[in-house]
């Protein structure tokens, strides 16, 4: 099936929508693709660089973006005109950015998320399985082990930060036919452990704080993605770790390593493994496997 490249997606015309009197929502595509996400990133970076008065919030999301503005200064139709003309100028394959590549250690099938997911079985599509068993089965894997190997086997691109502060939505950097897809819980849970690794639709999420959630639960990382007091050195500039466009590599660890890292994180001494790279979409599209291998060589 796969020739080892990522097929470029032809995007439909964007849908510009009014969010009341003070927001504009732009849907670049109904389906997720790298093209849609890169376009959302490129346009939101461009609009930030303009001197358009009245912008309040500029937030890229997976295949869309959102802008809040002051309608006392800027009419929504004027904003939409500006967005249309920016969009005409953008060529995703020429768009590049500096990305940080992070090592994110994960204890898959950990005791804490397992306890939580067992507690909420009645809200699940398949109360008889665990979330990992269910996800492995519906995605055609022979075993949970093979499924975990796949999830940890190629890096994930951060395509959106949102829901709560610091929560990254991550899209695995593999061709469409190799991507995992799972439904969200039938009814969202009222509890999720902090630092849980969840999966819903085509996205991995890391829950920064305990709270509600609807994603399937696969494991827990000992490292933080949100540090409100900015005590860990990686949070010097922001209380939030990843940015859209960063790359996370989920690395399977055992309980012993989990506890050792957790101790360092709690002591405030943990040093994240991370490197800066210039991310080049065109090279990634042409040879994702080779590109990912080079990213991992930089990281480890």
């Amino acid at each position, binding site marked *: 099936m796969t020739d080892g490249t990522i097929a470029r997606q032809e995007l439909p015309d964007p849908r510009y929508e009014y969010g009341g009197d003070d927001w504009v929502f732009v849907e670049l595509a109904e389906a*997720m693709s790298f093209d849609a996400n890169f376009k959302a990133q490129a346009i939101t970076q461009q609009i930030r660089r303009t001197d358009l008065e009245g912008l309040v*919030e*500029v*937030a890229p999301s997976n295949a869309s973006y959102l802008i809040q503005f002051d309608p006392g200064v800027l009419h929504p139709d004027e904003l939409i005109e500006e967005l249309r003309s920016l969009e005409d100028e953008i060529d995703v394959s020429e768009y590049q950015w500096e990305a940080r590549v992070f090592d994110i250690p994960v204890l898959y099938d950990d005791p804490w998320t397992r306890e939580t997911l067992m507690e909420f079985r009645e809200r699940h599509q398949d109360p008889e399985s665990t979330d990992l068993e269910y996800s492995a089965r519906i995605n055609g894997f022979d075993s949970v082990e093979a499924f975990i190997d796949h999830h940890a086997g190629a890096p994930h691109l951060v395509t959106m930060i949102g829901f*709560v502060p*610091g929560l990254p939505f991550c899209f695995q950097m593999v061709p469409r036919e190799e991507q995992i897809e799972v439904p969200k819980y*039938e*009814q969202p849970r009222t509890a999720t452990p902090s630092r849980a690794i969840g999966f819903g*639709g*085509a996205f991995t999420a890391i829950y920064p704080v305990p709270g509600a959630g609807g994603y399937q639960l696969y494991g827990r990382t000992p490292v933080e993605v949100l540090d409100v007091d900015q005590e860990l050195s990686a949070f010097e500039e922001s209380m939030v770790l990843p940015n859209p466009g960063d790359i996370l590599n989920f690395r399977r660890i055992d309980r012993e390593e989990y506890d050792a890292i957790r101790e360092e994180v709690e002591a405030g001494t943990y040093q994240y493994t991370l490197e800066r790279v210039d991310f080049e979409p065109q090279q990634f599209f042409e040879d994702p496997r080779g590109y990912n291998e080079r990213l991992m060589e930089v990281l480890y």
Partner: protein
Amino acid sequence: MRVLDGGLVTTVQDTGRHGHYHIGMPPSGAMDQFAHRVANWLVGNDETDATLEMTYMGADIEFQADAVFAVTGADMQPALEDEPVPTWTAVRAEAGDTLSFEFATEGARTYLAVGGGIDIEPVMGSRSTYTLIGIGGHEGRSLEAGDELPIGEPSTHAEAMVGATIEEADRPDYARAEIDVVMGLCDYRLTDDGRERFLDADWKVSDEADRVGYRFEGPDITDMFEAREQPFGAGSDVTNVVDLGYPVGSIQMAGQPIVLMRDAVTGGGYTTVGTVVSPDRGALSQCRTHSTVTFNAVPVEDALDSRHERDATLERIRDALAERHA
């Protein structure tokens, strides 16, 4: 200022923490910005100064220094040393006086402004409390008995404001039941009949109605949706979309409609079908649990008009109050 009793949920709020949506940070800030701003102006503050937002059942507060204060928003029958004090009016308190509140008789949220404002170190440009991650306000949480709040230096004309009051006609009507909405965002997911039923229905404010969101009870929403083969990445439920950003005020269809308020999640994978217009977000935040509202679809031009009208009213009130010390 010392807190003797925190009431039900009392937090420090201001005009909000803007510009951080892209890291998942909602704006927070006073839910009823009209009442918050007017309370500040009544005591000679800037609109960006911090006030206390009290929900349903107000707090008991002891002034530790002489102060000028004003209470706006829902009527919680404030009393100073057990003497009733007028709302929407600047009042003088002396050091040692206790200000107490009862249950709200109309509306849900009351604002207390003090000359000089609540002087807490801002976090990311705002003093607003965002309890989910525990930032802003007093230790990032609701107030409890024993908390002490520092008050800033009152402006030179705070004293001149004592007795200033807002005309009855300029006070909002908190009994309203119709909320204006600009339909859109992802409302293409609704059938024509579904959209009509959504707009025709009486929606009851459920018990789950707070600073994060207002959840409504009413007719089943799942059969209002168009059936489709779900796009890649969305998840299998008809109400799922590829996770996207949620505007504050947007209506997300997650089992039931939920209007997202100022502490809301900033994005997710439920279909949003419209957005409550900005002036009506404050009105909605004054709707009480078990009250009923209807959503009234308006074109964006009408939404802009009603915002400009609201802004003009606020400006007129601010200018009239400023004349007192001109």
